[in-house]
C-alpha cells in the first residue's frame, strides 16, 4: 500500500507539471507565473520517481533510518501497531455524510446526528451518555459559533433556527 501511495505522489507530480507547463515561464523579462510551478513540478517528478524506485528496492520494513525524531507534533513513521482500518474508514464515511448534511439539514441537526452516529459506533456501552452528549455538545458548539462569535453556520432546510 505504501508503494501505491508513492505512486499516487508520482501521478500527482506528473499532473501538476503538465498543468505547470501550460503557464508562461518568463513574462516581460522577469519570472512568470510558470517559473516556480515548472521547476517545482519537475523536481516533484524526479523525487517521487526516485522515491518509488527506492520503495521497490527496500525490503518490507526497513526501519534503520527511522529513528530520528522530529520537531513537529508526533510525526514518527509508525507502520507497526495499527490495524483498525475499518474504524478509520467508518469515521471518514460518517464525517463525509456529516459535511454533506451540513447544507441539507443545517449545522445544528447535522452535528447532533453526527455525534450520535459516531458515539453509537464507538461507545456502545454508554448510550444514555451518548444521547446527552449528542445534544449537549452540538448545542454548545452552535451557541458558541452562532451567538458568541457571530459566524454563519449552514441552516439547511431549517431556516427558522437562524
Amino acid at each position, binding site marked *: *500500500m*505504501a508503494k501505491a501511495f508513492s505512486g499516487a*505522489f508520482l501521478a*500527482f507530480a506528473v499532473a*501538476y507539471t503538465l498543468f505547470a507547463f501550460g*503557464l508562461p515561464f518568463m*513574462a516581460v*523579462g*522577469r*519570472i*512568470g*507565473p510558470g*517559473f*516556480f*510551478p515548472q521547476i*517545482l513540478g519537475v523536481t*516533484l517528478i524526479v*523525487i*517521487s520517481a526516485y*522515491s518509488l524506485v527506492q520503495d521497490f528496492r527496500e525490503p518490507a520494513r526497513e526501519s*534503520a*533510518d*527511522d*529513528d*530520528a*525524531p*522530529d*520537531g*513537529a*507534533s*508526533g*510525526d514518527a*513513521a*509508525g*507502520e507497526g*501497531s*495499527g*490495524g*483498525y482500518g475499518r*474504524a*478509520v474508514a467508518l*469515521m*471518514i464515511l460518517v*464525517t463525509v455524510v*456529516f*459535511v454533506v448534511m*451540513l*447544507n441539507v439539514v443545517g449545522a445544528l441537526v447535522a*452535528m447532533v446526528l453526527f455525534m450520535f452516529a*459516531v*458515539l453509537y459506533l*464507538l*461507545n456502545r456501552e454508554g448510550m444514555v*451518555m451518548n444521547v446527552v452528549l449528542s445534544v449537549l455538545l*452540538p448545542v454548545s458548539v452552535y451557541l*458558541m459559533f452562532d451567538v458568541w*462569535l457571530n*459566524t454563519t*453556520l*449552514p441552516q439547511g432546510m431549517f431556516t427558522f433556527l437562524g
Partner: protein
Amino acid sequence: MDVFADLIYGFSVAVTPVNLLYLAIGVVVGMVVGVMPGLGASAGIAILLPLTFGMDPVSAIVMLAAIYYGAMFGGTITSVLINTPGESSTVASTFDGYPLAQQGRAGPALVLCAVGSFVAGTIGLMLLTLLAPAFANLARSFGPPEFFLVVVMGLLTLIVVAGGKRRYGLLSALFGFALATVGVDLGSGQQRFTFGSPDLITGINFIPVAIGLFGIGELLYSLYQGAHREESNVTEVSASGPELWPKREDWSESAGPMTRGSFLGFVVGVIPGAGATIASLMSYSMEKSISKTPEKFGQGAVPGLVGPESANNAASTGAMVPLLTLGIPGSASTAVLLGAFLLYGLQPGPLLMTQNPEFAWGLIGSMYLGNVMLVALNVFAIPLFANIARVPYRVMAPIVILLCVIGTFSVNGSIVETWIMLGCGVLGFFMKLYGYSPAATVIALVLGPLAEETLRQSLIISNGSLSIFYTRPVSLILIAIVVLLVAVPLALGVRKRLARDG
C-alpha cells in the same frame, strides 16, 4: 537599556484585563490540548484560530501562543501518569516520569516538572528578550536574496531533522509548495491551477489544510492504532499532603538538569526545524551521560525527567526567536502561528519588533505571565487536568472532528474549504501511516508564497541574474549553511550505509 524599556512596554500591553483573560484561556486550553493524546498543539492552535477572528490581533496571538507553550506543560501530565506522551515533545518524560509515578511519586514528579518548565520558560524568555532585538538588527540588513535563503534554510532543517525517510519529508514539503501555487500569481495576476473554480482564486487557505492534516489526520491515525479501544489507566495523584511535594534531595538533584536543559533547549529551539522534541531527547542523553548514576535512568531518575522537561519548554521559547525576528517557523505549531500572524496582517521579520512593538513585546510580556499561570495551575490543579486524561478517546474523537468541521466552515463560510479540510485529513492519515511529514507540508504551504516572492524580488533586483545570491556576503554565508545542512546528513547517511554493508 533599551531592552528593558521595551519589556516594560510589553508588560503594559499584556497586563490588560482582556489580554489577561485570553492568556488564561489560552493557557488552560493549551494544558487540555497537551493532556489529550492524539491532539497536538499544532492542531489545537489551528482549530482555535477561526475562533479568534473577532479578536484584536495582539489578544489573539497571546492566546494562541499560550496554547503552544501550555501544551508543553500539559503533555507532561499524561507522560508521567499514563506513560503516554500527550505531545511528541514529552516523550522523553515517560522514560523516568512513569517509573516515578509507579513508585508512588507522581506528585513530586509533576511538581518538579512544573517548576522545571517554569524556570526553563523564564530563562528562555530572558534569552529571547536579549536576543530578539539583536537578531532583528542583524536581519535588518537582509534583502530579498537573504530572506529567500532563510526560507529555504528553514524548510531544509525541518526535512533534515524530521523523522521517517528523508525523501518522504522532501516530497511532503514539495507537495506543500505545490498547494501554495494555487491561486492568483502575485507577479502577473494570472490564475494558476484554479480550474475555473471561484473558491480557488484566493488560493488554498492554510487553515483548512492545517486543521485537516493535524487535527483529523492525527485523529484518524490514532483510531487506526486503536486508541478508541484502550482503557485509560491513570495513576492516582493525591492532591495534597506530604506526598505531593518533592523532597529536598529531589530539588538539589534537579537544579543542574533544569539549568542545563534550559540553555540546551533554547539553543536547539532557535534552530529552525529542531524543536522541543529533539531538545528534550538531547537533554535526556546529556543528563544520562554526565550522571554519576546512569543506571538509574529509566527507573525514575529525577534528572532524567527534569532535564527534558526544562529543555522542551526552553525550546518552545527559543522557537519564537526565528519566528518573530525572521518570520521562519521551526515547527508545525510555529508554522500555524506564523499563518496566524499573516492572517492578521502582521509582517513577521526584522521590522516586526520595531513597527509593531505592542505586538512583539506584548507577546513576550504575556509569555512571562503565562509561565507563571502555568506553574500555578500545574502545581495546584493537577488532579483536574488528570481527569481530562480520563475522558475516553472514543468520546473525545467525535468532539474533535465536530470542532474541526465547524471551525473550518466558520472561517469563510465555505463548504469547499470544509471539503479541503476533510481531504487533507484523509491525506494526513496516509501521510502519517507511511512516514511522510504533514508538518513539512504545512510549513511549505505557509512559506511557499514567501519563497516565491523573495526569489522573484531578488531576480528583479539583479535583472534576472542568479549572481545576486553569491555576490552579497550575508547571502554567501547563508548558502554555505544551506549546503552544510544538506551535505552533512547525506554524508552521515552514506557513512552509516557503508558501515552497515561493510
